[in-house]
């Protein structure tokens, strides 16, 4: 059974005013326990609005959200349950750090869950280890950390709640290549070690290609595509039209196909591209390329 599910979910902003906007429209998706789902879409496509429904931060204007098959808006308790089961880490989460020490900041979530001191401590230590924050940083003020460390501390705060579903909204935005690799690396380890369900929201197709097993693409408040990463990337031309950034190698192959060369259009890693071109050149000139 799916852990999270939405049926015909619609959300409007500025309802019954002149500025009414449909932010998400008629969305039905299912997220399986333990899967790594990528949610792709450019700014304004509705992806952040969608994920805020997953833990009850936003209430649907129509349609339903189910956790373990139960409507999360059934009762006060069920909403509260969803808040703890689904951990949501916003964009630029480092702006939300507020405590006196990094340790207290990471422990804020578990404390609110009413856990015992030693359990809180275990979770803080574990989350800090996941994101690679050294022990001595935990006693520092979060405001004395570097930008990359702040980001990691903020993500650790959500991980420490040990949610069954971890949702990360653009966790690599604004980071340099090294920072990006670090964050994606620990998200991957977190999932391998905990077996938890992870939803990664991004406009970077590269990030999604590296981690996700399945992806949905949002465009104009609706789901434009859903499928395996392979299936999504094979539609590179459409992704470009939606204002998304496909890997350079995908651009190269779209260009080559546009020139009439007999190559595949679903190439998104350098390895695939290399294989595809070796095949082409071997066939083309009788094995001239070794």
């Amino acid at each position: 059974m799916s852990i999270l599910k939405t049926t015909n979910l619609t959300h409007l902003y500025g309802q019954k005013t002149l500025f009414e906007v449909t932010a998400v429209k008629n969305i039905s998706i299912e997220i399986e326990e333990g899967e790594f789902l990528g949610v792709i879409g450019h700014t304004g496509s509705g992806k952040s609005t969608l994920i805020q429904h997953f833990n009850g931060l936003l209430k649907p204007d129509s349609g339903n959200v189910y956790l373990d098959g139960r409507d999360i808006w059934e009762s006060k308790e069920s909403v509260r349950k969803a808040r703890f089961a689904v951990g949501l880490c916003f964009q630029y989460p480092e702006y939300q750090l507020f405590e006196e020490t990094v340790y207290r900041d990471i422990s804020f979530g578990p404390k609110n869950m009413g856990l015992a001191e030693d359990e809180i401590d275990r979770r803080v230590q574990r989350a800090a280890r996941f994101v690679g924050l050294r022990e001595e940083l935990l006693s520092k003020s979060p405001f004395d950390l570097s930008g990359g460390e702040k980001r990691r501390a903020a993500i650790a705060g959500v991980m420490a709640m040990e949610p069954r579903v971890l949702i990360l909204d653009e966790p690599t935005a604004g980071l340099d290549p090294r920072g990006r690799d670090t964050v994606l690396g620990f998200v991957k380890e977190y999932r391998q070690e905990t077996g938890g369900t992870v939803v990664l929201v991004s406009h970077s197709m590269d990030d999604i290609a590296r981690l996700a097993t399945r992806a949905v693409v949002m465009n104009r408040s609706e789901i434009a595509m859903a499928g395996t990463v392979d299936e999504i990337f094979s539609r590179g031309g459409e992704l470009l039209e939606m204002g998304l950034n496909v890997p350079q190698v995908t651009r190269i192959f779209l260009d080559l196909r546009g020139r009439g060369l007999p190559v595949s259009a679903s190439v998104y890693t350098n390895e695939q591209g290399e294989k595809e071109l070796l095949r082409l050149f071997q066939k083309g000139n009788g094995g001239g390329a070794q």
Partner: protein
Amino acid sequence: MSENIIEFKNVTYAYDNAAEDGNPIDADPAVSNISLAIKRGEFVAVLGHNGSGKSTLAKLCNAILTPQGGAVMSGGFDTADESRVLDIRRTVGMVFQNPDNQIVATVVEDDVAFGPENLGVEPLEIRKRVDEALTAVGMYGFRLYEPHKLSGGQKQRVAIAGVIAMRTDCIVLDEPTAMLDPRGRLEVMDIIKKLNRELGITVVLITHFMDEAVQAGRVIVMDEGRIILDGTPKEVFARKETLRGTGLDIPQAAAFADRLRADGIPLPDGILTAEECADAIAYAYAYANN
């Protein structure tokens, strides 16, 4: 008028957290003994990972920071000379990373007028400059909008218009696209190129995106407060080992071309973009089949 719009001579700058209590600690300098000349009309990209000193370099260009050792001359004025700060700000304008932190007014055109107003420009002249600047960045149609209703890319274009309206000869942009989605990044890069080519404005673009750097005429790579590479994009990106050593990637298309060359597919050196790579592959394929 000097041929160089910005000159650094043996410039050193260190951030010093403990300076307030009168006990300076020996922090590693953010910028260490840098000498550099930027000519009028150049488009220079400055690459480096976070903490490499590139933002410090940017802030030294228009006297937001002044050197602790050596000297910076901007538009012929010594940035250490406090009586010249306005002259320097009239010469070199800055655009920062976060669009929300640099918009001050509640209407787009008021925001663009803020800079020239502070320089004491006549009201009629301000009106003219604001209209021209908004037209140059393609935002004239939004002149009466509230800035918070704009997308990130549009906000950055307004911030750039604010600098254009000050008629500075040089614009320094510190990671202006880091917080934007792919569409916003394209919009801003198009404007930056236009400023340089059509208005002859000198551009210094601080970035960690390789695909942005390849569009500049000159690329400077920083690491640990020093300049480690300086040349045309082709020259700089040929130094793959040096780049990787500092935690930077080489452009994806260049890495892909390298693999193909190693496989025996005859491609020329110096491929940096997807278009160049597709061109070269198509050429090699046509050649192999003749």
